[in-house]
């Protein structure tokens, strides 16, 4: 096993600060509320999840430094609910993430969080938000871009803040008829006197900083909520709370990174032990990730590939899955070593960019509500991305060896070829299944929708690569170079169509942001390829 890989990258990744947020409570702890069920965004979820999602929407974080103290989402959001006084309007908790927007509206270009007072008195912002709203009113399907989109996002965060202050987002009781849940203020006093009283009692205890009374009132509210009914089953709520707290994907990447480092360090001595240890570590990470994905499946009741966040996690999972399968067959080490950087980078990206990659579980757009097609078409397409990501990793090992002045073995190139085969088969199957699904949902098999077209472009690119190898136009090295370049078409099909082109029928997946990150990645990859080409020609 001859390996050469970017150790500094892994070390740098591991040195990231993973210390959990230390919450210094200045207040009563709202912990007793975490299993309260709340209806928001088209589904019922535990209060803990609601607060984290809400604060992430509002501030881009799940904890904030307010009044000189680090406060977690439960504390901040419960504070807004229990004590909605005007002092909140002066607190810096609304995210203005876009730097050009901050400059345009005359805010500090460095700071990202602002108070409602500061934003609501900003006339330039108000003008931009109004213009964005006008565009939307004229054409509800209009796509906002640039500053207008950013301003509209800030406007929506301000709206969310106002809703929270009014208490209208805290829908905690199932109605007698219909399915629109009620806030405590909407409950008819003649029917839900006890509920109103328990919320009032929570409020006064919160303000008086009386933990015992607060916990008594919340436990009363929880049992009243159960009496009224309409709740998801207890195991589902408990599972969602556990999933929310456990951060399985974060622990998974730490284990993967450790596996990668041990694999690298043991290549000269203790090779067998190192390989076994890295297998155990990667396998544990894989099981943890599988458990996390399974939790999402059970909570949402659908395959975990319905937005960019989920697909990034899933592709990381698939990459490790294929690597472990190949390792079981060939015991080579190269598959695992190729997969680890890809999986680790994907999982860190998913964890660290909540504004671009939304972690929340939302109800699906009607066209996606078909578990058969989601689990056949989408899973095979995303698994093909995973296989190509693995080939990208294996190609990196080969090219790194070339750059280091060594000649990769023919076996390594064979492994690369095998990963490409998996990807080509899955992408062909996935693209065709997409056509069959489109025939049912949209009423046509193929219509050159950009997502369809880019899937085909990527497939043609990889077929070009394999046919060129068959014809002898290029050898293993060309295959490695091609695997890196062809992966750019996968990025385009996966990220580019939704985030850059923003056209076509797959509009439910559209988003913004991350362009500079992806552009830097593409630039680095091309430089890496150029460097290997230069070293190859120098060594000839």
């Amino acid at each position: 096993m001859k390996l050469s890989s970017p150790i500094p990258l892994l070390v740098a990744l591991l040195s990231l600060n993973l210390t959990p947020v230390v919450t210094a409570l200045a207040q009563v702890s709202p912990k007793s509320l975490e299993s309260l069920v709340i209806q928001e965004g088209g589904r019922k979820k535990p209060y803990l999840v609601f607060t984290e999602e809400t604060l992430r929407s509002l501030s881009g974080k799940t904890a904030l430094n307010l009044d000189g103290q680090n406060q977690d989402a439960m504390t901040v959001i419960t504070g807004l609910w229990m004590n909605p006084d005007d002092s909140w309007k002066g607190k810096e908790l609304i995210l203005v993430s876009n730097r050009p927007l901050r400059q345009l509206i005359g805010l500090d270009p460095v700071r990202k969080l602002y108070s409602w007072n500061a934003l609501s008195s900003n006339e330039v912002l108000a003008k931009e938000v109004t213009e964005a709203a006008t565009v939307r009113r004229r054409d509800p399907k209009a796509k906002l871009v640039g500053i207008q989109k950013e301003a509209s996002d800030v406007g929506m965060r301000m709206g969310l803040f106002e809703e929270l202050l009014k208490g209208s987002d805290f829908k905690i009781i199932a109605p007698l008829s219909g399915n629109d849940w009620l806030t405590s203020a909407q409950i008819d006093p003649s029917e839900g006197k006890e509920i109103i009283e328990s919320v009032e009692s929570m409020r006064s205890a919160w303000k008086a900083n009386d933990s015992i009374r607060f916990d008594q009132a919340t436990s009363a509210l929880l049992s009243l909520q159960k009496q009224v009914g309409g709740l998801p089953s207890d195991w589902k709520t408990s599972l969602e709370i556990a999933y929310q707290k456990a951060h399985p994907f974060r622990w998974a990447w730490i284990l993967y990174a450790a596996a990668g480092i041990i694999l690298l360090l043991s290549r000269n001595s203790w090779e067998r032990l190192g390989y076994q240890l890295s297998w155990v570590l990667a396998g544990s990470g894989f099981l943890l990730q599988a458990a996390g994905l399974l939790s999402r499946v059970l909570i949402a009741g659908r395959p975990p590939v319905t937005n960019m966040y989920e697909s990034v996690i899933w592709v990381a999972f698939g990459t490790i899955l294929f690597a472990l399968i190949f390792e079981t067959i060939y015991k080579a080490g190269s598959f695992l070593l190729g997969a680890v950087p890809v999986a680790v980078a994907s999982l860190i990206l998913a964890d660290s960019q909540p504004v671009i990659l939304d972690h929340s579980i939302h109800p699906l757009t009607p066209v996606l509500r078909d578990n058969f097609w989601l689990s056949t078409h989408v899973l095979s397409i995303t698994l093909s991305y995973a296989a190509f990501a693995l080939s990208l990793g294996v190609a990196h090992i080969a090219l790194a060896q070339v750059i280091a002045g060594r000649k990769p073995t023919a076996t390594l190139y064979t492994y690369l070829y095998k990963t490409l085969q998996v990807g080509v088969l899955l992408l062909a199957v996935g693209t065709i299944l997409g056509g069959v699904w489109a025939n049912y949902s949209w009423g046509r098999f193929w219509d050159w929708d950009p997502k369809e077209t880019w899937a085909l472009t990527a497939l043609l690119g990889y077929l070009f690569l394999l046919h060129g190898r068959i014809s002898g136009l290029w050898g293993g090295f060309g295959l490695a170079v091609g695997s890196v370049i062809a992966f750019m078409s996968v990025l385009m099909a996966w990220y580019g169509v939704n985030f850059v082109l923003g056209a076509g029928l797959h509009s439910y997946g559209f988003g913004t942001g991350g362009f500079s990150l992806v552009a830097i990645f593409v630039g680095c990859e091309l430089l890496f390829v150029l460097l290997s080409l230069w070293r190859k020609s120098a060594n000839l």
Partner: protein
Amino acid sequence: MMSLLGNNTPRPTMSRARMIAERQRRSSAWRVIHLLGSLKLALVLLATIAIAIATATFTEAHFDAAVARAWIYKAPWFIAWLGVLCINLFAVTLTRWPWQKKHTGFIITHYGIILLLIGAVVGSKLGFEGNVTLRTDGQPQRKIVTDRSCIQVESPADSYLYLMPFDTRFMHPSATSPKYLPVPGTSLQIGIEAVSEHLTPQPHLAPASEKAAGTGVLLDFSSGMMKQTLHVGLSTGEGSPGTYDFFGRAAIALASNASALPPHDPNGKKPWLDLITGTEGKPLEYQIGRGTAVTSSGNLHEGDVLPLGWADWRLHVAQIASKCAVVTTPAPDDSGAESGVPGFRAFLMNPAGEKSTPLWVASGEVVPLVLGKEMVRIGYGLELRPIPFSIALAEFEVPRDEGTETPSDFRATVRFKNTKTGAQQDGLIRMNHPASYPGGLLANTTGFNYKFSQAEWNPRDLKETTLQVLYDPGWLPKWIGSLAICLGIATMFYIRPRE
């Protein structure tokens, strides 16, 4: 444990290689087959098709899906190139003749692609895609709107309607180089000398018979703030408009004397503009007011400009004429609102080169072109395809996600009626679950079937839904081809026969 690189390449054994080389040397037909089926041609095809379609997606994002379609996906050169691909795929399977067991996956995959492309051609030639908008309180529909724009010409020779494909988006005729279309059965030609994507009805004054004639005015209202210009035509003649509702915010009226003007609401606060024509040759008298109060008054001549005091709206008197009526004809919209419908300006021409007056033909309208004694009716719009049954919307429901207004599904119950037998059949169309007519296993598998899928809805009117309609006789070859590609690749990569 491992196989060597390129083990998927069918490597001919020595005698086989010699036989293949020999047949190429002996026969020019084999040489052509090997040339057409060469890997180099395959590489060129793969690369060019990939680059072309990738470029098309950027074209679509920056212009329009229709442009990408016209330039690339549906362009003759692209279709021809796919034809070359089919030849390459077919020829490469011949180069492996006589086939061996190891060629199974390879043959299945390559024929699968050919079959899929044949299915696509059959579908696009013999089938069609379109849509139909239905209302629960509307009439059953017997026609489907396709996405193909065409000109409809009624020939004076046989009174038949002839359809000719024409799309204003991709044609750029001019007065100096018009596009000519023959009128079937006659020696006449229709000349198209201009196109516009924004035709709106524009008023103008035309001489009229005794009863319809009156004093007419053409008024232009413009606002710099709204970046808009409105053309309004009013006449005192019978059948012409005498009043104009200005965005519901103000009322404009024209009459020959003050007593003929509509009365003003004494309690109303709506601004108004009254115009009195008086006797012939006199200037227009005007009054501007609010409720019953008059804020300004005076005289107006042709060419005068008057600020109205309604934001920055100004009135320009474009024309005053007697003994005329107001007629509206489509013309390119110069208001800056980019509203209106597409259309073109056409004239009729006889073999002697004489031309009729050019007229604008807007989408959805029929216009008679008259040259001497000859008259040809011409229309423009999306092609309508008749279907051998009728479809009506019985019920339409939009269930929502709990606690929100977000739709969770769309459920349309439709009623099909066979127009010959009168037999009725209901179908339920949900997201991902289309309804088919006539339906049944054979029709569904062959695609000789009309398939209705949910396409669009109107959030403001839940009695209406738009369905996508597909009639695709190429479905079976597409299906088999698709299956063959998947199975073929899997066989090629993972199933190796023992030789």
